[in-house]
């Protein structure tokens, strides 16, 4: 990409001409669409996943509106099936998996390790184009009539009994999978080969550790999903395959392969969030994170043990009792590292000097909701309870607590925390806090009733339900409206802050990461000369409270 002479950037009204940074050095569309700069690619991803978050959100809203009444009177049952499938596919593959790694990870990883860019910039841009191409195929499938197999594509329904655009969606998700593999590969190589001098493994910030572990899962699990979806596609075309009961194939073989990817995938979604929270809490508590070494072992533990537990999705599916015992025990073991992390975040607050800015509210919200999500996971890991609770709204509530209460909350916290670095502008603090509280309240109101619904036995993916479940469903739908409002609020004031926001200095939060030692927004090459790291991360001392030291 030839360094075009910086186009005449329109100087902000009356302000002295801004120094050249990665954002205003070239406003041409060509410079954005052929950029190699990891920061610009991060923004391209941010825009793309925002669009998909909106589409997934619309589908969720219609589902919640439909469930207000026991009868199926808003949309037909076919449409309802297509809605929850669209909600699942788009939210999982088009928003949650790329959200923190591809947006915050792309922007911050090179800066946090003192590098000028990722190891393979062109591969990084290619991953964005592959992501958009996969997204287009999925949207094409929705436009042409949607798909009604659920985001899990269970056979033989997906291979023989569904006559919706299954193959198009399989192709879309297949392509998006390669975008994840490219991002994962890029991160692993970057962390291994491009760390600044003096930046040893145990001086890396926990955000880098979290994205490194996530990349290992991305790189090892996604190809298995890709081939499994190809096998489903082949079986649809040839009417014959290894999952086909008529041939003696086994539908459970599909479930083994699908969940071998999909359980590590939920750790792909939650691990980066843990990295974001591990950056925010020490900064706003002005204290070094508690047990840094144990936190890194916990991150790696989650990534490794996360690969062993997929069978807890299949306790009642006809899997053997012995395998159920094995998976249940391993599922309890994977809960240990998550528990360690929650205890360490709480201990970080001890003897700190805590300010409750918006990022901190999001981070504490994450700790609260992720704890509930994790603890309810124990219910589903224990065999006898899972028999009653699986495939009910208890499971829906559990994974929404982890994914929405956890991953989305942390993504919002990360966006607010690094907003000054990304845009050079501060977001309005009051509105930030209002939105955080609104989302926390709206979320709990939406999903806590679903735990009770699940215990009472309301199955998942039900278009109509017996009248006795109506009151809790109305409560949940009411909460969903507050949650939707909570998500729209940041869209407004963050957009507003782009133009009217107060200018942010290089380090408004007085944080200690390497990324804060660059001007905001940073120049194209991040650092004039590569910084030398002398001591570990999070060197906060409570005296340098925010505001005291200017």
């Amino acid at each position, binding site marked *: 990409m030839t360094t075009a002479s910086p186009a005449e950037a329109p100087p902000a009204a009356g302000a002295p001409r801004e120094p050249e940074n990665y954002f205003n050095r070239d406003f041409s569309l060509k410079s954005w669409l052929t950029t190699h700069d990891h920061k610009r690619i991060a923004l391209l991803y941010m825009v793309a996943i925002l669009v998909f978050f909106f589409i997934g959100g619309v589908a969720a809203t219609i589902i919640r509106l439909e469930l207000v009444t026991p009868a199926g009177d808003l949309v037909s049952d076919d449409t309802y099936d297509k809605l929850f499938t669209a909600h699942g596919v788009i939210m999982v593959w088009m928003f949650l998996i790329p959200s923190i790694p591809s947006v915050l990870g792309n922007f911050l990883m090179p800066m946090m390790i003192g590098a000028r860019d990722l190891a393979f910039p062109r591969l990084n841009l290619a991953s964005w184009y592959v992501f958009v191409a996969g997204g287009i195929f999925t949207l094409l499938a929705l436009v042409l*009539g949607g798909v009604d197999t659920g985001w899990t594509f269970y056979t033989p329904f997906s291979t*023989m009994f569904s006559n919706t655009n299954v193959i198009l969606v399989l192709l879309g998700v297949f392509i998006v999978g390669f975008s994840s593999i490219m991002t994962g590969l890029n991160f692993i190589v970057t962390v291994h080969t491009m760390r600044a001098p003096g930046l040893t493994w145990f001086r890396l910030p926990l955000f880098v550790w979290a994205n490194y572990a996530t990349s290992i899962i991305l790189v*090892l699990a996604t190809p298995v999903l890709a081939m499994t979806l190809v096998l489903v596609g082949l079986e649809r075309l040839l009417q014959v395959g290894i999952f086909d009961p*008529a041939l003696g194939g086994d539908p*459970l073989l599909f479930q*083994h392969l699908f969940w071998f990817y999909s359980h590590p995938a939920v750790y792909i979604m939650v691990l980066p969030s843990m990295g974001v929270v591990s950056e925010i809490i020490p900064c706003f508590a002005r204290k070094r994170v508690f047990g840094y070494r144990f936190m890194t072992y916990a991150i790696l533990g989650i990534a490794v043990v996360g690969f*062993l537990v997929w069978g807890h999705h299949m306790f009642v599916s006809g899997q*053997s009792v*012995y*395998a159920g015992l094995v998976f249940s025990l391993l599922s309890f073991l994977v809960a240990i590292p998550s528990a360690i992390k929650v205890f360490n975040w709480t201990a970080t607050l001890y003897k700190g000097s805590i300010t409750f800015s918006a990022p901190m509210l999001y981070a504490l919200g994450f700790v609260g909701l992720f704890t509930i999500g994790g603890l309810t996971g124990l219910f589903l890991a224990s065999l006898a309870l899972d028999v009653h609770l699986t495939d009910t709204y208890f499971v829906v509530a559990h994974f929404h607590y982890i994914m929405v209460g956890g991953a989305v909350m942390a993504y919002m916290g990360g966006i607010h925390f690094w907003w000054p670095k990304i845009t050079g502008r501060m977001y309005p603090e009051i509105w930030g806090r209002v939105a955080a509280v609104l989302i926390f309240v709206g979320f709990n109101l939406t999903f806590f009733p679903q735990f009770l619904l699940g215990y009472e036995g309301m199955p998942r993916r039900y278009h109509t339900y017996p009248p006795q479940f109506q009151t809790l469903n109305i409560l949940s739908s009411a909460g969903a409206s507050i949650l939707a409002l909570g998500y729209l609020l940041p869209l407004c004031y963050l957009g507003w802050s782009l133009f009217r926001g107060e200018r942010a200095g290089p380090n408004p939060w007085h944080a200690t990461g390497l990324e804060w030692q660059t001007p905001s927004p940073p120049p194209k090459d991040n650092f004039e000369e590569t910084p030398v790291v002398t001591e570990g991360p999070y060197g906060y001392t409570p005296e340098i409270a925010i505001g005291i030291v200017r």
Partner: protein
Amino acid sequence: MRYKREMIVWTGLMALLAMTFGAAWLRIGTWNTVISFTIAVAKAALVMAFFMHLPESSRSVRIAAFTAVFMLGILFAISGSDYATRRVDVAPWQPPRQLSPIPPARR
């Protein structure tokens, strides 16, 4: 001879190929699979060691080389624990006979 190493490894590979081909015709039941798998592993070891220069690569490369094999091992082992201990009594099942072939556009 500059390519002595490659020639030796090539002859080794051809010898192993001949062995596995020959061994396949013996009627020794499950031992056939064991032998052919071991010979395949031997061939793979030759290629990785001499052609892909794995021993002289860095530690992280060597770890990367064997991680995928380890992960597949996990997939086979634990799903194997299900298949090995699952008592399946087969039930009759007939695939759906499409009355009229579904038009390709909507498949």
